[in-house]
């Protein structure tokens, strides 16, 4: 519980040892999925370089993993850590929302 609060109140700056564990569920190479992969990759490279693990899961290939994580909407990005877990549906083109939910403080980078 304590960790959750501390994470929330103190957004992680790039370079922090946050250990991002991300899972992206996609459906083959369909347009939405392809876009989502490109978007999250670029976000990770830009803001979380060297501090993340991104796993791309094709639910057609590994449906049991989708089951385990209760994935309905696709593409779906799940932030397993740092806690709290966050889920985002869509092709991740809305960068602002994605960063917000990944608890990345964008202003700190530019400012």
């Amino acid at each position, binding site marked *: 519980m304590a960790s959750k609060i501390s994470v929330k109140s103190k957004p992680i700056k790039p370079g922090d040892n946050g250990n991002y564990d991300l899972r992206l569920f996609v*459906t083959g190479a369909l347009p939405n999925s392809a876009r989502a992969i490109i978007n999250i990759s670029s976000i990770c490279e830009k803001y979380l370089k060297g501090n993340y693990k991104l796993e791309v899961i094709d639910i057609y290939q590994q*449906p049991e993993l989708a089951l385990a994580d209760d994935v309905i*909407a*696709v593409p779906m990005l799940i932030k397993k850590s740092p806690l709290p877990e*966050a889920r*985002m*549906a869509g092709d991740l083109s*809305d960068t602002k929302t994605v960063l917000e939910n990944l608890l990345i403080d964008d202003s700190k980078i530019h400012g």
Partner: protein
Amino acid sequence: MPAIKTQKALLQTKKAARFKLPKAQTGINGLDDIMFGGLPRDRPTLLLGETGCGKTLMAMEFVVNGIVKYNEPGIFVAFEEKKEELIMNVKSIGYDLERHIKDKMLHLEQIQVNRQEIIATGNYNIEGLFVRLSLAIKSIKAKRIVLDSLDALFYGFDYKTLRSEFKRLFSWLKEKKVTAIITAENGDSFLMRHGLEEYLADCVIVLDNRVTNQIVTRRLRIVKCRGSIHGINEYPFSIDAKGISVFPIGSEALQLKSSSKRISSGIQQLDEMLDNEGFYLGSSILISGTAGTGKTSISASFAHSICVAKKRCLFCAFEEAPNQVIRNMKSIGFNLDAMVKSGYLTFYYARPTLQNLELHFIAIREMINEIKPSVVVLDPITNLMTEGPNSDIRSMLTRFVDFLKTQEITVMFTAAITVGSIERNPSDEGISSMVDTWMMVQDIEMDSERFRSLCVMKSRGMMHSNKVQRFEISRRGITLSQLVSAENYTSAETKRIDKEQRNLSTSGTSNLHENSR
């Protein structure tokens, strides 16, 4: 007769030539009759209704009946309830879901839709659901699937996604060749708001809970069913310990049996009035009369004679408790108690206000299916009439009589009418035109003596007597006799003339008095 035959033959050839949409039987009492076979096979059906209407139960019955009755494996996808809760909830109506799951005939899938999941960051779809359903369908080779409910699934989705995904879901289910039921809230839900169900679903069924006179009735209506005929009315249905029953009509009417066999009324003189043979087997009989004219006694005598002939009888008492009927009838020589003990006589006793009229009939129908009686007595039918408008009652009774006729069950109603309204009682009029045999019992007052009389008002298909007979109830039962003895014979006409003359003379004397003044 030949005319009927050709018409029937025509109907059959027409039927054979016409393509019939394949159906998946629901196995729910009555529903398959209304749907003319069942739900459209391999297509999705939308089941709408407010909370507590029985959507989940009906959907569950569809799946379980598929497993038990038709050997079709099924999937139940719950978006709202937990697996364990669901299993517990339907245990009360005798469904052992755990066993079906073990036998690989049932797959319960619980899908949690997280509110937070709907943080949209761009375009998305619900392919994840399809993948899960595919897995489930493949694992047990499912033929039937239930999604309960759409509202929980699509909660929080934006309209654009909702609309396209909803459409995709339906066509996906069709592709998978599964017969599906998808439940959704009726009324102010997203479906109705956006008019989605109007064009997407091939079959729409609406469930409804209505309260009239403080009595709740559940009703079901088939809004549409593409490619198939279906009953269009609202049909009452009940949920009890055995699950759902819908009260059907219509389809049965074609198979009505019209027997030429006869059944004795149990009173020799009454049989004589009815062409010397009694009622037709499987006909409907009405006895109407004011209070205390002996309606219950006649029906009890009928029931007794049936039981003596070692046939079963169901006596539905809406006024007196069975014990009271038994005691009272003992006083006129009918030992009904022995009949109950030997199993030939069964009582159904319920206060009319206990539940809606239709539900009484559903309950009675279930008893009939169980004990298979050859005679059913309803005493008195008029007590039920307080429970709804007359038109409802009439249509309900018609359906009930239709049902009994298909089973070749003879039914006797009694109707209490109020003094002075013999001809004008609307409810009575409604029934009396419907029944095959109508008898009237009356109190007649003549020369400072009251006695009972009985006459046959109508009796279809036989030469019945037109006489008004005097009938007596004694310790040894019921006997009929000539109305008046020969010695003080006065016909209605002479009596009237006599009275007119007396009136004339009295008015004459009063005139005289005035003149003298």
